[in-house]
């Protein structure tokens, strides 16, 4: 089991390495423009050169990447070229907010989707059609459009929630809950349908297996077979979907955060890339990669826990 986790993590590290190489060298194409921007649009070439020297842009990219990696391994992701704050602080504090949104949404999705999907598979009928409808809506309507609609209706028209802004949990728990309620709901609405459909599908698949009839032939009630055996066997595919959904929700959070003016990763990603703030962009990419790898490993471990074939091979 330990070996299994180790292997997954090693693959993850490889992935993050590939990601940072790719991002770093792609970003070099825009670096010159950034120096100009910092020095000012009307700055002389000499002034720009000074800025480039200060940022280390006069050194060859490979050398800069080397020192970036060395610093990063030591836990230092550099300082922002614009504000001067340490990237680690900015990214981790913002990541915490984004992860809160994503995790809250995944949990909400998981609970609702599993219940809906399981019931739809077990009962069929109108519930089944509702899940299919939800799936179509979730798939069809872009998440930010959903968020927009929620803001218009619940914040602007009805005034139940703050339209924008973020209250830290340290300030007021109630205010914090109110401020993240709409964003989390906006993220969740889009993902419930798809996940519920997947759960329904894998439940129906598990339900049609031969062993269900055999278990029933031993006198076990339908209910028991559904909740003990079918659900357990459908859990594997459902876990994979939720893992995938987490990554999708991280992406969705970027837009939703911007829309709700929440100080997560989204607004930072936007401003840093439009400015060309390479250290911040790198930091965001790498930290996001780390979070995703951790989540995927968790999913794999959970997968092995429910599926003896994975665990024992």
């Amino acid at each position, binding site marked *: 089991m330990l070996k299994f986790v180790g292997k997954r993590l090693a693959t993850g590290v490889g992935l993050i390495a590939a990601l940072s190489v790719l991002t770093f060298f792609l970003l070099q194409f825009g670096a010159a423009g950034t120096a100009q921007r910092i020095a000012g649009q009307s700055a002389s070439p000499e002034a720009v050169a000074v800025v480039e020297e200060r940022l280390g842009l006069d050194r060859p990219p490979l050398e800069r990447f080397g020192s970036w990696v060395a610093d990063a391994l030591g836990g230092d992701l550099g300082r922002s070229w614009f504000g001067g704050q340490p990237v680690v602080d900015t990214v981790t504090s913002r990541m915490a907010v984004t992860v809160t949104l994503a995790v809250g949404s995944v949990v909400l999705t998981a609970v609702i989707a599993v219940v809906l999907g399981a019931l739809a598979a077990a009962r069929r009928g109108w519930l089944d059609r509702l899940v299919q409808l939800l799936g179509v809506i979730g798939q069809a309507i872009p998440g930010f459009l959903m968020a927009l609609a929620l803001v218009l209706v619940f914040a602007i028209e009805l005034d139940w929630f703050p339209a924008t802004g973020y209250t830290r949990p340290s300030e007021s728990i109630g205010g914090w809950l109110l401020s993240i309620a709409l964003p989390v709901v906006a993220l969740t609405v889009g993902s419930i349908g798809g996940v519920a459909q997947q759960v329904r599908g894998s439940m129906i698949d598990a339900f049609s297996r031969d062993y269900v009839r055999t*278990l029933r*032939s*031993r*006198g076990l009630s339908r209910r028991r077979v559904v909740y003990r055996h079918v659900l357990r066997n459908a859990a594997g595919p459902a876990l994979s979907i939720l893992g995938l959904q987490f990554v999708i929700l991280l*992406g969705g959070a970027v837009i939703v955060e911007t*829309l709700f003016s929440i100080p997560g990763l989204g607004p930072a990603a936007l401003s840093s890339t439009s400015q060309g703030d390479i250290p911040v962009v790198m930091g965001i990419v790498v930290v996001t990669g780390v979070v995703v790898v951790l989540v995927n490993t968790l999913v794999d471990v959970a997968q092995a826990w429910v599926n003896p074939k994975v665990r024992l091979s």
Partner: protein
Amino acid sequence: MSSAHRLPASTPTRAPRAGLLRRLLAHPLGGVSLVLLAVIGAVAVAAPWVAPHDPTATDLRMIFAEPGGGYALGGDSAGRDVLSRLLVATACSIAGGLLVAGVAALVGVTAGLVAGFFGGWIDTLGAWFTALTMSLPSIIVLIAARSVMGPSMWWTMAIFGALVSPVYYRVVYNAVRGVRGELYIDAARTSGLSNTRIIGRHVLMAVRAPVVLLTAGVVAAGIGMQAGFDFLGLGDPTTPTWGQMLNEGFYNINRSRLLVLWPALALGLTTVFLTLLGTALRDELEGPSDARRRRNRAPWAPDGPLPAVIDHGNAPEGEPLLVVRDLAVAYPSENGFATVVRNGRLTVHRGETHGLVGESGSGKSQTAFSVLGLLPRGGTVVAGSIVFDGDELVGRTDEQMNRLRGSRIAYVPQEPMSNLDPSFTVGDQLTEPLVTVLGLSKAEAERRALDLLEQVGIPDPRRTYASYPHQLSGGMAQRVLIAGAVASRPDLLIADEPTTALDVTVQAEVLDLLRDLRDELGMAVLIVTHNFGVVADLCDRVSVMQEGVVVETGTTRDVFADPRHPYTRALFAAIPKGAPRAPLAGVTSAGALGTGRIA
């Protein structure tokens, strides 16, 4: 030989193969969405000519103008015509979505075909690229790419296409992998087709449907992503898009609510129609997921009088354990009911082994499932009676049947591996019914399960008890299933082709085991099989079933010695008689042994 076993003079009439487009138009959702999408597409193409104003021309007098006066849908914050912008934006948005799908399909399908068919390093590379793109939200990559490429909508959409290409890759890869294992690919190779021809002729055909299906969704996702990107203000400000219009409407929400409405409607409707089209495509390409309900289905009616059964007699004395009379089982079908059992008749006496033989589709398994009360979904006993030990089983509730199943009636299935739950150990699966149905304590149940495993001839019961199904061989798994079936010392054991999936030598052992257990426990066994050898080996009595009707019944010796029904005779005639072929002329038997080397 009965007529049913002759080849029909002409094969059934050819099913009409209507074009996909026509079938889509006939589909309730597909038709509507296809027509509306066509309208949206036409608007997009015609936009430059039908737009009443220049979408970028500003007019200070028209800032936030009401709809109607001059501008049909009013003016925006810069005094531009909302209608004209909406029309032109349609073209940009749809072109963006198509570009995403085009790039994604080109990259993903090609890579998926090559990796799926040849494997090797492309396979490894594909898996890596897929993992890479799945591990980072694409919006972050797009934002990063934008800082390199600048705010070009086309570049952004092309990159997004590359990022979603793994969606195609995985689908195509899996489809190709699936097809690769099909025997018709091997057959094509033995027909002399080269790899390129095989891909072009057989593999592409198999991936066509899933690719078409995906595309509707990917176009929608592309349009949505582009709108999101523009909504964030990352797009190209010179091309009007729905995303930009939404952005502008959202930030001026206090001045005019309608500004958000139009682009939101356009975006929402387009993506919804695309998704509905995808759903309709799935229905038409993969067949509807559930048979459409027919509200006014005619009630089931028997088709003709019940045919008579030839009974050889010689039945044992005493009250029979199981009597099935005039049984009919039917499934709802498109036009009424499909009757799979028309006249099921069986009499099983205590302690006897009764064989139910027939070919595939004869309804023998369906008859057995009816006795268990476990017909597959949709199947119903529509007529007849099943009397077990004096009690009528037809019409009993599931709960009442549960009391019988697992205590007095037990079941051994055909395919051993798929009949064990892969997620639980053998021990779990054996003890669960003992605890919940028979009310044993955990410890008692474990002791009993271990005894049972030993009884069915498993060499190391403790190890098997702790094993998961995938760690067992087929023969072992079948023994475990038999152990589970006899755990409650049932009066009747129903075995559905219990040895068909096993090798001959294992089959012989399992038949021995069933015989021993029957004698030890004094239970009756109803064994469903197509193998006359199995019947001869194990059964006291036999019933022959043809197309849902039991046509002949009697003691095994009587029926084998004197088969009377034409179908039974035809079956016996078809058994390989075992007359060996003489060696080929001109080959002496000594010479024939010449080249073979015996291990």
